[in-house]
């Protein structure tokens, strides 16, 4: 990723944008954080926050007109948060703080003329920044002196004036402005500022520039005589201080000043789940509980739309803007640990984030791109996707894959493509489905293989292309028939990479053809879960609902479904890269179910079933076996492989009178597993065939360890990149396996 691309990604995620209140506030008080502290009754902390941003906080906090409230989006749910009233409450109920400590002196002197709100604020702002400030005025606190106690309690103003002095401001009163005074001050000082609201003679200087408050005289700045509300006067003072700083530093007076004063924010905050709450009444005499309740009405505005719906984004505790930077940094590491590898490989590539994001941010695109470049640069951890890619190779190998016309036919009108996972989970269903399609549509060929999605998800584009070109070649050999695909991921993948093919879903076909003969019609009420791969396929989702309706199923829709469908944790190979998170994802989806689950993606079905829920694939209703639908187990990795092989063998034998290629010698080894061993193997991605290979070699070579007490044997074998260890004992004609483990590290000198 180039730096410019990173910037573009970062810009796209608006989570860090300023909330409406702060953007609208002329001096950008962090009202969101202020409300958060007030809601926790941390009055002193809240006051410290105000005093950090406000000049003359004791005065301004009580006099602010509440400009932010006109922008507050709580207005759409009961009424704007009363930030200005909260500020007054805070000023009245917190401990007074000493004035801020000015920055070290810049050895630059500024004269501020006028003792009204703007002049006092300007003196404050400039003193804070380390200017030597002289305040020249007729009288200090013009317009602030005679206010009733309810507005400005006695003593507050004088305390802030004392603070000004403590910050080093020299105050001279009884001074009258004149042309010659300005001229001599300009000679003597580095800059001069005139408070246009207090010093009426300022008018003779003409209107100051809107952006810089500069006048026709270099070094002379003035605020307009507009009698604006106090917060705008404070903003003018800050603008003047910024200009004086730029002027005395000799840098550009105009560049990068867009965020001074009120501006528009790009933030998005959803109000869909926000209950309206009316503001706390009254403006004075609030109790602490009143203030807290009003502050609690603040929505703590932020976006987080994607994080709220994605367990993966939530897991890493931040949001896409931060992730984009982490991914960028990860790629720039030359020496050292790449901390973000697992994060990059844990995205399910499901597209839900983009669907909910107001700015269309696609974490999937970001992560897939990152994976591809890791593969290209050779920095992709070899173990992450190896098991899944081996499984894909197996599904495409001789024992599982086939591409044929229907028996006794030499052409195909259609080609049934059930997909390698449906075949792995429900071989009988696939068998029945193929029979049904042939019976009703005639010349329907069959292709058993993987669509290539795992390679695509792993960022191995060349592997995906290679697999696809074989698939394409076989499809063309069959005469490029229309493809009937059953798996939504296959549908999506094939449509993307095989644009020449006409592809329909099995569900569309069944909708047109009518239900198959043996379909069950005792549906009941089920929660219909769309898989993430059907997110952009409205037709597919409709077809499925039509079929469910015809099956007599009443459907309940989960909250996140359809275009907002969640992934089950299989997508993007999450379950391989990060098994615990994959588990949490499936658990979350299972927990949200109110009824038994029905879906049309077999991975969703199997993963939800494994969470202990009753879960059905549509095939369980359309092409049911003998058992209770939904009771079919979710097969483990070894059984999935075996299911594919058996189905392929069975079809070849039954339909094409062909015998499968010879079995490999290790397949003859008889093995049984304790429950514990079976569990360990599933978690550690150890297959039955891996164990058979170990035992086959151990019996041939005799290379084993034996345990003195248990008499159990232990042997190891490394078929390629992983060494497998098996602890076992002989039993009847074969072996009982007690434990199995594996590692990738190799003993130098050849031991497997």
């Amino acid at each position, binding site marked *: 990723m180039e730096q410019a691309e990173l910037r573009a990604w970062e810009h796209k995620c608006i989570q860090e944008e300023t909330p409406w209140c702060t953007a609208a506030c002329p001096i950008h008080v962090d009202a969101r954080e202020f409300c958060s502290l007030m809601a926790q009754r941390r009055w002193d902390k809240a006051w410290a926050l105000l005093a950090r941003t406000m000049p003359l906080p004791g005065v301004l906090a009580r006099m602010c007109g509440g400009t932010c409230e006109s922008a507050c989006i709580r207005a759409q749910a009961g009424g704007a948060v009363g930030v200005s009233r909260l500020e007054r409450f805070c000023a009245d109920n917190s401990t007074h703080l000493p004035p801020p400590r000015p920055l070290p002196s810049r050895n630059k002197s500024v004269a501020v003329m006028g003792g009204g709100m703007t002049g006092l604020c300007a003196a404050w702002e400039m003193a804070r920044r380390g200017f030597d400030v002289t305040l020249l005025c007729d009288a200090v606190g013009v317009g602030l002196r005679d206010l009733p106690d309810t507005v400005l309690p006695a003593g507050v103003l004088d305390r802030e004036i004392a603070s000004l002095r403590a910050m080093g401001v020299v105050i001279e009163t009884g001074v009258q402005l004149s042309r010659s005074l300005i001229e001599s001050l300009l000679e003597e000082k580095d800059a001069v500022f005139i408070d246009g609201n207090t010093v009426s003679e300022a008018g003779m200087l003409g209107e100051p520039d809107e952006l810089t408050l500069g006048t026709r005289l270099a070094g002379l700045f003035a605020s307009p005589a507009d009698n604006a509300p106090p917060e705008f006067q404070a903003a003018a003072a800050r603008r003047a201080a910024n200009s004086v700083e730029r002027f005395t530093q000799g840098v550009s007076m105009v560049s990068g000043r867009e965020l001074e004063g009120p501006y528009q924010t790009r933030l998005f905050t959803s109000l869909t789940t926000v209950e309206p709450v009316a503001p706390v009444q009254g403006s004075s005499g609030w109790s602490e509980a009143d203030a807290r309740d009003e502050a609690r009405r603040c929505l703590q505005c932020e976006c987080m739309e994607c994080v709220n719906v994605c367990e993966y984004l939530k897991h890493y505790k931040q949001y896409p803007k931060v992730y984009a930077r982490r991914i960028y940094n990860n790629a720039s590491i030359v020496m050292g*640990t790449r901390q973000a590898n697992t994060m990059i490989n844990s995205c399910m590539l499901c597209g839900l984030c983009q669907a909910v994001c107001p700015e269309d941010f696609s974490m999937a695109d970001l992560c897939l791109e990152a994976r591809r470049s890791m593969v290209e640069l050779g920095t992709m951890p070899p173990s992450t996707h190896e098991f899944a890619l081996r499984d894909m190779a197996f599904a495409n190998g001789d024992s599982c894959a086939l591409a044929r016309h229907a028996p006794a036919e030499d052409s195909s009108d259609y080609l049934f493509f059930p997909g390698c996972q449906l075949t792995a989970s429900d071989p009988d269903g696939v068998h029945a489905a193929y029979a049904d399609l042939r019976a009703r549509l005639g010349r329907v060929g069959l292709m058993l293989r993987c669509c290539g999605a795992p390679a695509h998800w792993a960022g191995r584009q060349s592997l995906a292309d290679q697999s696809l070109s074989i698939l394409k070649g076989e499809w063309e050999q069959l005469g490029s028939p229309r493809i009937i695909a059953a798996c939504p991921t296959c549908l999506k993948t094939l449509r993307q990479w095989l644009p020449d093919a006409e592809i329909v879903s099995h569900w569309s076909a069944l909708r047109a053809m009518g239900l198959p003969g043996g379909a069950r019609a005792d549906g009941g009420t089920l929660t219909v879960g769309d898989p993430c791969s059907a997110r952009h396929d409205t037709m597919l989702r409709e077809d499925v609902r039509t079929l469910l309706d015809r099956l007599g199923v009443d459907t309940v829709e989960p909250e996140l479904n359809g275009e907002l469908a969640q992934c089950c944790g299989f997508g993007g190979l999450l379950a391989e890269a990060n098994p615990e998170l994959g588990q949490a994802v499936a658990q979350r989806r299972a927990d949200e179910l109110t009824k038994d689950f029905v879906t049309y993606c077999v991975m969703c079905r199997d993963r939800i079933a494994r969470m202990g829920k009753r879960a059905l694939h549509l095939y369980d209703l359309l092409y049911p076996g003998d058992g209770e639908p939904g009771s079919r187990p979710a097969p483990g990795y070894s059984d999935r492989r075996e299911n594919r092989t058996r189905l392929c063998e069975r079809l070849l034998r039954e339909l094409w009178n062909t015998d499968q290629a010879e079995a490999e010698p290790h397949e003859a080894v008889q093995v049984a597993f304790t429950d514990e061993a079976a569990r360990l193997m599933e978690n550690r991605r150890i297959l039955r065939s891996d164990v058979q290979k170990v035992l086959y070699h151990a019996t041939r070579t005799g290379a*084993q360890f*034996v*345990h003195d007490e248990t008499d159990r044997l232990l042997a190891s074998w490394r078929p390629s990149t992983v060494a497998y260890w098996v602890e076992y004992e002989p039993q009847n004609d074969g072996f009982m396996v007690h434990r199995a483990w594996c*590692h990738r*590290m190799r003993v130098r*000198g050849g031991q497997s």
Partner: protein
Amino acid sequence: MSVIRVPEADAAGWRCAACDEPLVMRPVELEYLDALFNVELPTCPQCNRVFISEELALGKMHQVEQLLEDK
């Protein structure tokens, strides 16, 4: 290269079945992704077969493998 000792490598109770020999601790070279380690592991003194315990494989060894993969 200094020899690393790991308590997880323990092979208590196991002997080489082929040679009928108890295992002894010997320095063994382990390699992964261009990294080489010298580790003391239970080994058959006769046929030099190295024993890698479940605890070692899934603990220290796995950690190091992951670390090297992220380098």
